[in-house]
């Protein structure tokens, strides 16, 4: 599998070099390497919670569909978009 391109079969887990915490019901990530912050909305927070253990993208999407009112295709796209951002920031690992 090409680690640079995420798809629904990619298996994702959190990278070691990231800190997280919740402030006023919003999750915030911080890259240990760059010191940069990322604020997560509710859906992104749910994705981050899911990948505390390795998960495939399709499994994450399935769980999100149970939590949020969103169409399958939109959910898949938004999840992949967000995971791509995390990958660029080196905040996730892709198996």
């Amino acid at each position, binding site marked *: 599998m090409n680690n640079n391109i995420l798809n629904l079969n990619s298996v994702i887990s959190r990278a*070691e070099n990231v*800190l*997280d*915490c*919740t*402030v*006023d019901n919003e999750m*915030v990530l*911080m890259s*240990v390497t760059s*010191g*940069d*912050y990322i604020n997560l909305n509710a859906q992104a927070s749910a994705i981050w919670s899911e990948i505390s253990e390795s998960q495939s993208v399709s499994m994450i999407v399935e769980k999100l569909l149970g939590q949020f009112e969103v169409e399958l295709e939109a959910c898949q796209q938004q999840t992949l978009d967000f995971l791509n951002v995390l990958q660029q920031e080196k905040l996730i690992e892709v198996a």
Partner: protein
Amino acid sequence: MEVTTQQIYQKLSQLSNPQLNLGLLSSLDKKLGKTPNDLGLLTLQLELFQKAGMLTEAFTSQQKIAELSGKFVSDEITSAAQQLSPVTKYFNVGKIDPNNFSAAPLVLIDDFLSPNLVSELLTHTIEHEHKFRMANVGSDNPHYVPDKRLTHVCFDLGKFKAHFRDFIKKNINNFTILLDVPHFNFDKSEIKITNHLNGGFFQPHADNTAIYGDSKRVISWLYYFHQTPKAFEGGELLAFNSNIEQQEYYTHKFTKIEPINNRFVAFPSCFYHAVTPTLLTDNQFSNGRMAVAGHIRFN
């Protein structure tokens, strides 16, 4: 206040939020539990302590990093700190890289004056309310710019002028050692009392363009005092990691200094800094966030 300044303060407020920094520190603790001597993680811990204004913890963390990296504090630095006060804390000594972003060197002394003197200074300030006016911006061509700064200022310090001036003059050498400033010919110390009432602030700025820049200011210092119990919120000093050569600063890397009663702080004038907005519900002059503020000038 300018919209851009409001946006900067909004971001700074988020980044210095204790809940955020304590949460991230807790997350970091788990990693440090596995690798307690990881210098990268300890350095991040120090940064988070500084951003949260947890300066006692930051000082301890800084000493641990120095020990682990074999960079022991020199006798000269220890002696300079002791001569200033037995409780002097200093940060980021020897870290200035003029061509890169560097954390601001800081000297911090809590319980600076005796309780009687603090009380006298507070009384003096309140009695001289009629002498306060709005502060200007700029040292070459000072002018009033409420979008950049809302500070009440008074130049009548009574007997306290000599008290602070003498302390500064006597300790120039100690300041230069602890603040990483090359020795210079002392000219004088500007000195004034400031008071931040409701909405008071001072947007990010530097007091000089270089260590020996045109404004002649080398070291900036502040002494905080206020009524107890404290009636205001905010009014914190943020000293930003700055690139002196490029005259730039990071908004996401800074040290927060809370305006705790009877606290003295000093830093090189060329480092960018800001005062966060003060919230003072009753807006009474006597309940404001007060400071004696000064700049040490070279000749």
